[in-house]
C-alpha cells in the first residue's frame, strides 16, 4: 500500500499519529528505534530523504543518529546540518519551500525543486534532536517521479505530530536503555564482585579486580597498585591487558604519574588528554586516555585502580569512573578480606606449627632432652639464630641455662638474676620482651655483646600456673631478620606449651623417681624379709654371715660383685675378717653370673642352697683374703677401721690415691671404688661390710649406698643377736663343761681322799716291812737263798713305796711350801740316794753347775721328788751303762735365749712350750704366777737311747709307761711340780741316742719371803 493511495491529498495528522505511534512503540531498543523514525517520516510525508539527528550528551553537538533515502542516496547531509542547527536554535520547525531559491543553503546541483522541512524533537523543554525531510514527492501522477511539490502546512502538522511521538519513543528507549545498562552494569559488578569475593589469596583477588575492570571499561590495560603505608609508596599489585608486562617492570616513583597523584589526593581522575596532562610519563607515549580511582577501605588507602586506553579518540566518561569506583569499593573489601585471611592463615599456620611442635615436645619426658628440643624447635619456629632455655632456681633466685642452641660453651655456668639481661627482665616482669637494637638496649649484658653481633632478642617467660619455670630467649645476629611483635606472640604461644611440657616432664620425672623409690623400698623390704626369713632358720653366726653376704652379692639383692664381712673383736681391739663372697677373677665371675642368670633362682633359693653347702664349698681366694684380715681398730689403720670407729658408711671412689686407704688392708681389694658400711647392733658397731664391683666396674650409687646402709643396719641387729646367742650358747656350754669338770673333780677328790687315806695306812706297814727286810738282807748276806729272798722283799717294798708316794702326790692338789733352797745341795741330796746304783750300773756322771747363786724359793720336798723321778728314769734307761749329765743354768728371759729352740730334732715341751712366744708365759689355771725375769734350769740327760718319737707326746700323760715296773706317774708328777712353781718341763729328744729333761723353775725376786705364798 502506498501513501498516496491512503492520503491522496497529503497526510492526515491523526492517521500519522496513529501510524507512527504504533510503529515507534513496537520497540524499546534505541538501535532499532532510531532507523525506524526517519523511514516512517519519509514514508508518511512522501519525502525522498529523512535525517534524524540527536544531541550528543557530552558535546551537545547534533549528530546524525539515522537517515532514510528512498533511492539510496546520501544527499542533503550538509544542508541538514545547517537546517538542524537553525531548527534547534529556533526550537521550532523550519519549512523551506524551495531550497534552490534560498541563498542560505547551498543546494545540490540539478535539483529542480527541493523542499525541506525540519522539526525539533522536544523532551520536556529541551531539544534532544531534529528530524529533517527533503524533496517531497508529488503523487498526482505516479508515473512521473519528477513531479515534486513543496512541503505544505499539512506536512508540517503531520511531521510535528510524528516528531512528538518520535521524541517520546526516543526518551522512552533511552530511559529503558539506561535502565538496562544500569542493570547490566550492576549484574556485571555483581558478577565481578562475586569473582573477587570468591578469592581469598590476595594475588587472586587483585587479578580478579583487574579482570573485572577490563570487562567494565573495555579498556586496553588495567592495573592495581597497593599502598605500602610504612614505605609511603605504591607497590605493584596486578596488571592485565596489552603492555601489562611494561607495568610489572615499571620503576615506580612517588610524585610522578597519575597513580601517585591519585594516591596522594585520594581523588579519582579521568585524563582524556593524557599526553597533554602533567602526569604523562615517559614510556607511555601511546596512551590516549586514563581513568584512575583510589581504593579506599573507610578512610584507609589500600591502593590505586587504574585503566588506560591507547585507542585514538577514546574518552572515559564519568559513568566509567562511577563503575570503576564501585569496583574499587568491592576491591577494597576483598583486599582487606584477603589480607585478614592471610593474617588469619599465617596465624593458623603458626598455630599449626606450634601445635605440631607442642605435640612433639609433650611426648618427650626426659627433662634435659626436652629442654634441648624446646630450644631447637623455638629457634626453627621463629627462624632465630640461636636460643636458650633458662631455668629458674627458686632457691638460688637466679636463672641458669638449661639448654641452648646455636650458642657456644661460654653459656655454661652462666647465671642471671631477676632483671638481668633480656631473659632476666622477662622473668622479672613475667611478660615477653622484644629488643631490636640489643647493644643499645638497657638490658644488654656485656658478655653477650662481646660474643657477637647480636642485634635482636626476644624473651618469653615460661610460666606454669603463676609459677615461673624459666625463660625462653631467642636472638638473631646481624641485620638479616628482625623480630616482630607477631613473632613475640608466637613465641608466647609456644612458651605456654613449652612450660606445660617442662612441668609435665618434671612431674613425670618426679613420679618416676617416687616410683623408683617405692620400687627400691619394696626391694629393700623384700630382701630384708627374705634375709629375715633366712635368719629365722639359724642363729648360727657363720650361717648368718653367709646369708648377709649372699644378700649383698646376689643379683636380686644388692648385686655387688664382692662383699666381705669383718667383725669387731673387742677384747683384742681388732677388726677381724670373717667371710668373703665373690669371684676371684673375671672369668670366674662371668661363669658364676652366667650360671645364675641361666637358672634364674630367687634369693631365697640361693640362700637355702648355699646354707646346705656351708663349710663344704671350696675356699675361694677372696674368702681366704677376707679371713686373713686382722685390722687394729685405730683411726690411721684405713677405711675399714674408720668405718667401725666412726660408725658411718664410707665410699671411696679413687682407692688407689685416697690417703685414707691403707694399702695393707682394703688396698689389697685392688679396685678403684669400694664402699664400707658399719654393722651396728643398737649403738654398738659389731662389724663392717665392704663391697665393690671389681668385675663389672658398675659405679656404686648413692642409692646403692643407702640401700646397703639400711641392709647393714638390719644385718647388724641380726649379727648382734647371733653374737648374743653365741655367747649364751658358749656360756651354757661352759656351764656344762664346768659341771662336768666339777663332777670329775669331786670324783677325783673323793678318790684322792681315799688314796691319801690308803697311802697313810699302807706307808707305815711298808716302812716296817721294808726296813726289817733290809735288815734281814744285811744279816743274811752270803746265806743263800735266804739273803736273796730278803733282798727281793726289800726291793718290792721300795717299789710299792714309790707307787704310794706318786699316787699320794697326784691324788691331791699340790700345796707348796716355799723355802729358800740351794738347788745344788738339793741335787747333792738326791744323788746321794742313787750313789750306789750309779756305781753299780757303771754310769759316768757329768756335772755342769752354774756359778750363779743357786738359791731360790721352792718347795724342796716337791722339787726333790721331781728330781728323784728324773734321775730314776735316767738310770732306768741305762741298765748297761752310759752317761748321766746333770746341769744347772740361770737363764734370762730374752729372745734368743729362749729354751727349746736348739736342734731341729727337738721334741715336744710339756705340751705348752712349743713356740718361743708361748713358752714365755706358761698359763696354768691353778696357780697364776707373775712373769719371771730369770729361770733356774735343772737338766737331767741320759744316753739311754732317747724316747721313740711316736710316744714322745704321751710321756707326760698319767699312767703311761713303757717300763715293766713303772707306775706311769713319774713324769706327770714332775710336770705338776714344775707347773705348781710357775715353771715347766721341756724334753730335748734324739731318738736312738739321748734325751734331756729340763726343769724350769722361776727365780723370784731376792729376799722374797716364802711365807707370802
Amino acid at each position: 500500500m502506498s501513501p498516496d493511495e491512503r492520503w491522496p491529498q497529503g497526510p492526515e495528522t491523526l492517521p500519522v499519529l496513529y501510524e507512527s505511534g504504533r510503529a515507534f512503540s513496537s520497540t524499546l531498543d534505541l538501535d532499532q528505534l532510531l532507523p525506524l523514525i526517519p523511514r516512517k517520516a519519509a514514508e508518511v510525508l512522501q519525502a525522498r530523504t529523512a535525517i534524524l539527528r540527536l544531541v550528543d550528551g557530552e558535546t551537545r553537538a547534533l549528530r546524525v543518529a539515522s537517515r532514510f533515502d528512498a533511492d539510496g542516496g546520501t544527499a542533503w547531509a550538509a544542508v541538514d546540518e545547517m537546517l538542524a542547527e537553525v531548527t534547534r536554535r529556533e526550537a521550532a520547525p523550519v519549512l523551506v519551500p524551495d531550497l534552490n531559491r534560498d541563498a542560505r543553503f547551498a543546494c545540490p546541483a540539478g535539483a529542480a525543486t527541493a523542499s525541506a522541512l525540519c522539526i525539533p524533537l522536544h523532551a520536556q523543554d529541551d531539544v534532544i534532536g531534529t528530524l529533517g525531510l527533503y524533496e517531497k514527492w508529488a503523487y498526482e501522477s505516479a508515473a512521473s517521479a519528477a513531479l515534486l511539490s513543496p512541503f505544505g502546512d499539512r506536512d508540517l502538522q503531520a511531521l510535528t505530530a510524528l516528531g512528538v511521538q518520535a521524541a517520546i519513543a526516543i526518551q522512552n528507549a533511552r530511559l529503558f536503555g539506561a535502565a538496562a545498562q544500569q542493570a547490566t552494569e550492576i549484574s556485571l559488578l555483581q558478577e565481578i564482585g562475586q569473582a573477587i569475593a570468591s578469592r581469598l589469596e590476595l594475588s587472586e583477588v587483585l587479578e580478579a579486580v583487574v579482570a573485572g575492570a577490563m570487562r567494565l571499561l573495555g579498556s586496553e590495560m588495567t592495573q592495581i597498585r597497593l599502598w605500602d603505608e610504612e614505605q609511603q609508596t605504591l607497590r605493584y599489585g596486578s596488571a592485565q591487558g596489552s603492555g601489562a608486562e611494561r607495568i610489572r617492570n615499571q620503576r615506580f616513583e612517588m610524585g610522578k604519574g597519575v597513580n601517585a597523584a591519585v594516591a596522594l589526593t585520594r581523588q579519582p581522575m579521568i585524563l582524556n588528554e593524557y599526553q597533554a596532562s602533567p602526569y604523562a610519563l615517559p614510556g607511555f607515549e601511546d596512551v590516549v586516555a586514563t581513568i584512575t580511582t583510589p581504593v579506599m577501605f573507610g578512610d584507609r588507602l589500600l591502593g590505586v585502580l587504574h585503566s588506560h586506553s591507547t585507542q585514538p579518540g577514546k574518552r572515559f566518561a564519568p559513568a566509567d569512573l562511577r563503575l570503576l569506583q564501585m569496583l574499587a569499593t568491592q576491591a577494597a573489601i576483598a583486599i582487606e578480606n584477603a589480607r585478614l585471611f592471610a593474617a588469619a592463615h599465617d596465624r593458623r599456620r603458626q598455630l599449626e606449627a606450634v601445635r605440631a611442635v607442642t605435640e612433639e615436645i609433650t611426648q618427650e619426658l626426659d627433662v634435659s632432652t626436652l629442654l634441648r628440643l624446646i630450644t631447637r624447635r623455638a629457634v626453627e619456629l621463629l627462624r632465630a639464630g640461636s636460643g636458650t632455655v633458662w631455668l629458674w632456681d627458686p632457691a638460688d633466685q637466679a636463672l641458669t641455662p638449661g639448654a641452648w642452641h646455636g650458642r657456644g660453651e661460654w653459656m655454661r655456668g652462666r647465671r642471671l638474676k631477676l632483671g638481668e639481661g633480656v631473659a632476666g627482665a622477662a622473668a622479672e616482669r613475667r611478660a615477653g620482651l622484644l629488643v631490636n637494637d640489643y647493644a643499645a638496649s638497657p638490658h644488654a649484658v656485656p658478655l653477650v655483646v662481646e660474643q657477637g653481633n647480636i642485634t635482636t632478642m626476644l624473651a618469653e617467660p615460661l610460666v606454669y600456673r603463676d609459677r615461673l619455670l624459666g625463660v625462653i630467649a631467642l636472638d638473631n645476629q646481624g641485620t638479616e631478620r628482625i623480630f616482630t611483635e607477631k613473632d613475640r606472640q608466637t613465641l608466647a604461644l609456644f612458651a605456654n606449651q613449652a612450660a606445660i611440657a617442662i612441668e609435665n616432664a618434671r612431674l613425670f620425672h618426679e613420679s618416676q623417681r617416687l616410683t623408683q623409690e617405692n620400687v627400691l623400698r619394696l626391694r629393700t623390704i623384700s630382701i630384708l624379709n627374705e634375709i629375715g626369713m633366712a635368719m629365722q632358720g639359724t642363729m648360727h653366726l657363720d650361717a648368718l654371715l653367709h646369708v648377709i653376704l649372699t644378700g649383698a652379692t646376689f643379683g636380686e639383692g644388692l648385686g655387688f660383685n664382692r662383699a666381705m664381712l669383718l667383725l669387731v673383736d673387742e677384747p683384742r681391739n681388732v677388726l677381724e675378717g670373717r667371710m668373703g663372697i665373690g669371684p676371684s677373677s673375671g672369668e670366674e665371675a662371668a661363669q658364676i653370673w652366667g650360671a645364675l642368670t641361666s637358672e634364674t633362682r630367687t634369693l631365697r633359693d640361693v640362700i637355702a642352697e648355699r646354707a646346705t653347702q656351708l663349710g663344704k664349698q671350696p675356699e675361694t681366694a677372696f674368702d681366704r683374703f677376707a679371713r686373713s684380715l686382722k685390722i687394729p681398730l685405730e683411726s690411721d689403720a684405713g677405711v675399714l677401721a674408720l668405718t667401725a670407729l666412726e660408725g658411718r658408711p664410707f665410699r671411696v671412689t679413687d682407692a688407689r690415691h685416697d690417703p685414707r686407704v691403707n694399702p695393707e688392708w682394703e688396698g689389697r681389694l685392688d679396685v678403684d671404688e669400694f664402699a664400707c658400711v658399719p654393722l651396728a647392733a643398737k649403738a654398738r658397731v659389731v662389724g663392717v661390710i665392704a663391697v665393690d664391683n671389681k668385675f663389672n666396674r658398675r659405679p656404686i650409687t648413692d642409692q646403692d649406698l643407702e640401700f646397703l646402709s639400711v641392709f647393714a643396719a638390719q644385718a647388724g641387729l641380726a649379727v648382734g643377736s647371733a653374737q648374743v646367742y653365741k655367747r649364751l650358747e658358749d656360756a651354757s656350754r661352759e656351764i656344762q663343761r664346768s659341771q662336768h669338770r666339777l663332777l670329775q673333780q669331786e670324783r677325783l677328790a673323793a678318790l684322792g681322799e681315799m688314796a691319801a687315806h690308803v697311802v697313810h695306812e699302807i706307808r707305815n706297814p711298808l716302812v716296817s716291812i721294808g726296813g726289817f727286810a733290809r735288815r734281814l738282807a744285811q744279816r743274811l748276806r752270803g746265806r743263800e737263798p735266804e739273803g736273796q729272798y730278803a733282798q727281793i722283799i726289800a726291793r718290792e717294798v721300795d717299789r710299792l713305796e714309790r707307787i704310794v708316794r706318786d699316787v699320794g702326790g697326784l691324788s691331791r692338789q699340790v700345796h707348796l711350801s716355799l723355802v729358800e733352797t740351794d738347788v745344788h745341795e738339793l741335787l747333792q741330796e738326791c744323788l746321794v740316794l742313787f750313789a750306789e746304783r750309779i756305781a753299780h750300773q757303771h754310769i759316768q756322771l757329768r756335772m755342769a753347775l752354774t756359778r750363779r747363786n743357786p738359791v731360790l724359793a721352792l718347795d724342796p720336798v716337791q722339787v726333790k721328788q721331781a728330781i728323784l723321778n728324773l734321775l730314776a728314769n735316767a738310770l732306768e734307761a741305762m741298765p748297761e751303762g752310759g752317761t748321766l749329765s746333770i746341769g744347772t743354768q740361770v737363764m734370762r728371759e730374752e729372745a734368743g735365749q729362749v729354751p727349746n729352740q736348739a736342734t731341729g730334732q727337738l721334741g715336744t715341751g710339756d705340751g705348752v712350750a712349743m713356740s718361743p712366744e708361748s713358752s714365755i708365759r706358761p698359763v696354768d689355771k691353778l696357780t697364776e704366777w707373775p712373769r719371771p725375769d730369770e729361770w733356774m734350769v735343772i737338766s737331767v740327760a741320759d744316753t739311754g737311747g732317747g724316747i721313740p718319737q711316736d710316744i714322745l707326746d704321751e710321756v707326760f700323760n698319767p699312767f703311761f709307761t713303757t717300763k715293766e715296773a713303772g707306775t706311769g706317774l713319774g713324769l706327770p708328777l714332775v710336770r705338776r711340780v714344775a707347773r705348781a712353781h710357775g715353771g715347766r718341763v721341756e724334753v730335748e729328744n734324739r731318738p736312738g741316742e739321748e734325751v734331756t729333761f729340763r726343769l724350769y723353775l722361776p727365780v723370784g725376786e731376792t729376799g722374797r719371803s716364802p711365807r707370802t705364798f
Partner: protein
Amino acid sequence: MKEILVVDDEEDIRLLFQEELQEAGYRVSLAADGSEALRMVKQSRPDLMTIDIKMPGMDGIELLRRVREIHRDLPIIMCTAYGHFRQDFGTWASDAYLTKSSDLMELKEKIRELLSGA
C-alpha cells in the same frame, strides 16, 4: 755316844728305828706318845729327836712346839708318812723334815749331818 729319842706311836717303827740307829752307833731311847716323850725330855736332854707327826693324843707338831720350849736348840727331825705336812707352819720349827721310808739311809744321813754340824 750320842743319844737319840725316837717318838712314834707304832711299835714296829720304833723297833726298826732302834735297831738301825743302834747299829749306826747311837744310843736310842723310845717314846710311844707325846706326853711320854715330854716327860723323858724333861728328865734328860737327848742329843737328837725324831718325831712322828701323826700320833694319837698329842700330835708330833704339838710335841715339837713343847720340846722347843724346853730345849731351844735340840736337833729335831720330823718324820711322816705324808708328804704334805710341810704346809703346816708348825713343822718349820724342826731342823729337818723327812718322809718315812723303809730305806733309812736318808734318815741316818740327816742325823749324821745334824749331829756333826752341831
